[in-house]
């Protein structure tokens, strides 16, 4: 599965997972971050599904955090981006940058 191309939303998720501070990188934080940055509503289901796919592709990893009092003792899943994830994100950026350069150079 590794090395598959990313969809647009997956790419955004992958970037958001890097942008959110590591120890807070939960589904809720990623969702909130994306809504803030993209200024459009993002459903929780889409975030879950996207992160599932990224995990399957080996781009992110998730671990269950400690139980906290705020969440009624329920544990929170924390995501971190793998080396493969970072590489895929850079690849995506490289492609985009190359195209932009061509556009602006014209």
């Amino acid at each position: 599965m590794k090395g598959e191309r990313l969809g647009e939303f997956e790419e955004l998720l992958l970037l958001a997972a890097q942008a959110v501070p590591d120890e807070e990188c939960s589904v809720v934080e990623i969702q909130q971050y994306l809504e803030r940055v993209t200024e459009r509503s993002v459903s929780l289901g889409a975030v879950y599904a996207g992160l599932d796919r990224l995990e399957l592709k080996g781009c992110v990893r998730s671990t269950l955090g400690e139980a906290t009092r705020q969440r009624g003792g329920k544990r929170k899943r924390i995501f971190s981006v793998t080396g493969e994830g970072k590489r895929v994100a850079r690849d995506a950026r490289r492609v985009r940058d190359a195209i932009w350069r061509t556009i602006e150079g014209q």
Partner: protein
Amino acid sequence: MRPPLLGRVLLRMCRLGDRRDEVDADLLDLFERRARARGPAFARRRYIGDALSLCRLRRTPEVITDEDRRGGLDKMGHDILFAVRVFRRHAGLLSLTVGGLALAIGVATTALSALNAATMRGMGISAPETVFRIASIAGATDRAELTERSRIFGEWAYAHYGRLAADVPSMQIVSSYLAEGDVRSTRETSQPWHVLYNAVSGNYFDVLGMRAVAGRMLNPSDDRPGVRTIVVGEGFWRNALGADRSIVGSSLIVGTETYTVVGIAGRENGSSPTRHFPPALWMTLTAHGETRIREQSDVPGATPRWNPPVEVLGRVKPGVTRAQAESEVSGVAASLALSANGNAKAVVQFEPAERPMRRNTAVVVTIFVVIVALVVLLACANVTNLLLASAASRRREIGTRLAIGASRGQVVRQLMTESLLLSSIALAAGVVVANLALPAFARLIQIPPAVDVSPDLRLFIVIAVSSLAIGLLAGLAPARWAYHADVTAALKSDQTSAPLPLPRARLRSILIGGQAAISILLLVLAALLTRSVVESAYADLGFDLNRIVTASISTRGPGSSIDPATIRDVVLRVPEVEAAAFATAPPFAGVMSPQRLNGAGIYRNDTSPEYFATVGIRLLRGRFYTADDARSGARVAVISERLAEMMFDSEDPIGQDMSRVWGRPASEGLALGPWRTPAGTQVIGVVANITPQLGADDAPTIYMPLTQSNVARLVVRARTNTAVVGRQIVDTLVTFDPRLRPIVAVPEDGLRQQLERPRMLAQLAVVVGAIALMLAAIGLVGVTSFVVEQRSHEMTVRRALGASERQLIELILRDNLKPVAIGLTIGLLASLAGGRIVQGALHGTSPRDPVALVAATIVLVAVAVVATLVPSRRAGRVDPAQLLKQG
């Protein structure tokens, strides 16, 4: 603050597995943040949206596959494609089976549509529980005297309706009158349609709450002198007027008058418990009456009168009880009776306007539905058989699929998809069949043009759902088998040589046997009905119907009563006339109902003395009455042989008092409307039995001297030709007195007309029987070909060991015809046992008629043998060398 209930319920419905806690907590976290930032309404809305989005999230990442991502539709498409590939292998057989199912669905749709149009639709009355049909008999003293007819029609004189409408404040009263006439379009000079139509009071539609589908219904402003407006029924509009919407506002000619069409009444309007079919159109009673009066005034010297018996319906106003309304109506009825006959007795009866189906209608409907269901069942058995056979011949394939990892669910789904695909194709084809067949069928069973038979949405849904259910049902047996399939056995087995597992072969035999049983039942029915029609057409009526002509003679204008004896003398002057008489009930001149007297259904005929000689009824004992008897008002009666046997056993009836027949004391006589007879009437003669109408074989009849000449018809026996003599009688009578209006009828035509219904029933039964036979044949061909295919290895071995081609064919024939023989026996026994149900529809034939039973059996056996023989011949043609090649 809690998240919204809807969201929580949605979330509960999501299949989240071991993630539930985590997702719950995340969602709650988000909810609280959003509530703080954007307010509770926003948070609630988004919570529901998120819960919905989570429902799509089903599995943990480990098991999400590409296939999952492509979605269920794609899998179904795959199943369907595969099914098509499988079916292509047996294209011929498959098209036969699907064709059969399509035919059955077509038959079912056609039959149910006609039935739906004929019986199921009501009158279209809104809030029908407050509407009553008001029946009344002036002068009647108890409810028993309301005859069946008046109870249904509840007829009032039109003039009395006016009083009722004015003097019963607790009800809104409407009235209607059923008339018939010719309708023509003003646009083209086409043939007129002869239709039934309703003349109604102006408030009819408003009070009953019937609605128009286009334009408007009639209202009180139409019910004024000089206004000529009509509303056409949707069925008539579709079938006769070509569903042309521009008809609203244009004109139609009814009878001789031109009317403006103001609207189209929906097809749910107008059927009633007494008439199965809605009228073609509605006009106001005022318009109808004006036309009638104008027609009468065209006749010189006549005083125009118009006061028809109308049907009266009333809606009880809100806040009034039914009892209150009934007492008001009774009061009006009593005062009407008082002014009419000087006695204030009148019985009023309220009947619900929308009555549930009458019992005999319900019986007919049930028989009808059962037959249709049987035909569909036959087709269903074929599909099951085909799928079973195909599943059996695919044991290897199914075994392989299971072995390489297909779940049992997937295999079952595949088989179900196949059967659903089959039934969907059949459904589509069946609807096409029904559309083609419906007009022909409507003509065959003589549904009038006013009825729209096209299936409505409700019926279509019933048919569609049941077709798909059939598909599922048919797929159930093979799917069940696949579910329990033994993978290793299936893989190890050589599908060409392994014997069929027993239960499946048994199910198949049961299906074939069942088909044979149903087919023989329907064939016997068809044969019986056909025989009954033939028998009726050539039955011995007990007299010679040839050369008899009847004429009803009404007179118009003042001083109209002419002595029947004079008329008879005039008619006898016609050289072609051999004999002439008068009778109230000449044979085949209409349908009479027997009166129940003393526990038996008895007919009565008041005749002039010459009647017996004219018709040709033989005297067995005693004497006929004479002209003197009639003149002197002698209390005498002649009875038929059958009646004598019923009432007097072995006693000599001559000289006996008729009180024995009436079942009342000798001092009383009979007070029964037109049957009224004084006490002391004696039997003076016994005559031979005759059959005066279909279904009244050897009718027990009382003949009495004719007293009221106005209701009697002229009965004439011609010397040679009925067609010529009819014309001559009319000419002679009109020349004699221009006020006479003779209407001539030929009883033979009456017989032919009475035969229409049985003939139609027989035709229907033959069509259904033929279809059933065809379906059974398709089933046999299908099963035999699969059996031959499966046993081909065995056949090859047998052939190699020296069996002849003939022996092999015989073997297959014997094995496959055994269930047919069993089914045939069961079917025959069932038809013998259930014969009584159809007895009423048979004339001159017993339900155990050996000719019908034998004929049906021969047809079924012949078809079964041919249907088995054709595919069996392949069994004989196996090549033993094939065995050696296979090793």
